[in-house]
């Protein structure tokens, strides 16, 4: 659809906060200080992660740390729960589950 903004979540207020730059799938994304990772990713994009047992894209669900359907991976191989993790400058996040070759050693 033409004219549709790329972000799933719409910012309605509180947009004067300091910008924070992160990377999502290698692309720089500007978030705002105080965003959760979930909001930072979905205010700019449409998808957060892939379902673990097939079934496609996911974009979070409960936003209160209960459903665990917003886990993301960092480039360093760490896993975080996007809805309860505050965004921090320099975060490098992936919306895809790492493949076996990149599976973190400590998981």
């Amino acid at each position: 659809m033409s004219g549709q903004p790329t972000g799933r979540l719409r910012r309605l207020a509180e947009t004067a906060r300091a910008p924070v730059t992160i990377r999502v799938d290698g692309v720089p994304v500007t978030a705002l200080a105080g965003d959760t990772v979930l909001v930072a990713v979905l205010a700019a994009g449409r998808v957060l992660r892939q379902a673990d047992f097939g079934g496609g894209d996911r974009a979070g669900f409960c936003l209160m740390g209960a459903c665990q359907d917003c886990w993301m991976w960092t480039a360093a191989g760490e896993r975080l729960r996007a809805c309860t993790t505050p965004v921090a400058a320099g975060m490098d996040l992936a919306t895809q589950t790492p493949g076996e070759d990149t599976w973190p050693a400590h998981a």
Partner: protein
Amino acid sequence: MAGPRVIIIGAGPAGVRAAETLVAAGLVPTVIDEGQRAGGQVYRRPPAGFTRPAAQVYGADAAKAQALHARFDALAIDYRPETLAWAVRDQTLHIARDGVAEALPFDALILATGATDRLAPVAGWTLPGCYSLGGAQIALKAQACSIGARPVFVGTGPLLYLVAWQYVKAGVAVAAVLDTAPRGAQLRALPDLMLRPGLLARGLAMQVRLRAAGVTMAQGVTPLAIAGAHEVTGLRYRTAAGVERTIAGDAVAMGFHLRPETQLADLAGCPFVFDEALQQWRPEADRDGRTPRAGVYVAGDGLRILGADAAEVSGQLAARAVMADAGIASNARETARLYTRKARLERFARGLATAFPWPAQMAAATPDAVMVCRCEGITAGDLRDVAGDKNAPELNRAKALSRIGMGRCQGRFCGPAAAEILAAARGVPLRDVGRLRSAAPVKPLPMATRTAPTTEPDA
């Protein structure tokens, strides 16, 4: 010798009022909170740096929210924010923060763990753009975001209308508010709801204003499917008159009232009872919140879904019970006043349960192909197979055979519907299929979690 070691889990209305009551008696409780700041979900505070006035964030409840925050901020206690309480065993609470685990022995434990949305699966509910109703509210309240440009609200409960109205007030073009409760249900509930005329008037006014704002409103609907191939494009539903309709929208907020968070009470060994009015299990407790398990108390929605005002009352009662059991006196007249207030709020909550009933038949009739378990993709058909061919008589057997409730949410979101599907397949009442047993950790911990250096008690 210091007073009893009291730990409160949760810093919503119940936890805050429990802490305040204990502090007034000279005790210094430890408060464990998963949130960044006290307030719980209902009075959740936006992160530092957000500037909307309280009236904009909490609407008509702004004064209550601010009062609760002020009460908490004035307390000299051991407050542990962003901390998960993940197990209870042998009078010891296990917590974790930032990947560091710690064991806290206690004499008394007050569980004020609150509630989460009560969900039933609808085809397509895992599509990006579908959120729980509570999640839709958190997006707005704590992050000043909407879940989409044109959200559809579906489900039932007072929160359905409240969140939709909050979205409209924030300037969002809400497409529809579709209530599964039948048209006559609200009317039948009036005698109980009249106990709080102000709140009832607010609820009714909200429905009028939503309609006036051009929002499609319907009662007695059956959601059939969330439309969309890769993300939400709308909702297909059947009206009370039996007509199929599709309403377009880029997001869906869905919830069917609330369910108590009871995992820690279960791990603490508390017995449970089946609440016929709400058709759900909850920890057994006396009117003070005292469970049959010595030293364990439950307060707020984590005991029974009565709402924020009742949570403030039951938090105070649980703290008074802790004090009474430790031989610390409290004002009996004030306790009696709290009982009276609680009884009134219980009747009002019964009215809400009548007005917005859990759609048991809809959940029981979930089509075979629909994914019930979001975590591991287990369908209603998979569940019926273990109920039939594999002869699972109750939920924990069904869990062992199908993995329903074994995923990362630990049955929080599939459990209510899974119980209905199993009960219907077995032809037994809901209570006969039991409830999913809780397992530690109650939420996933990072594999790298390490143990904190041991501290000497009373050091």
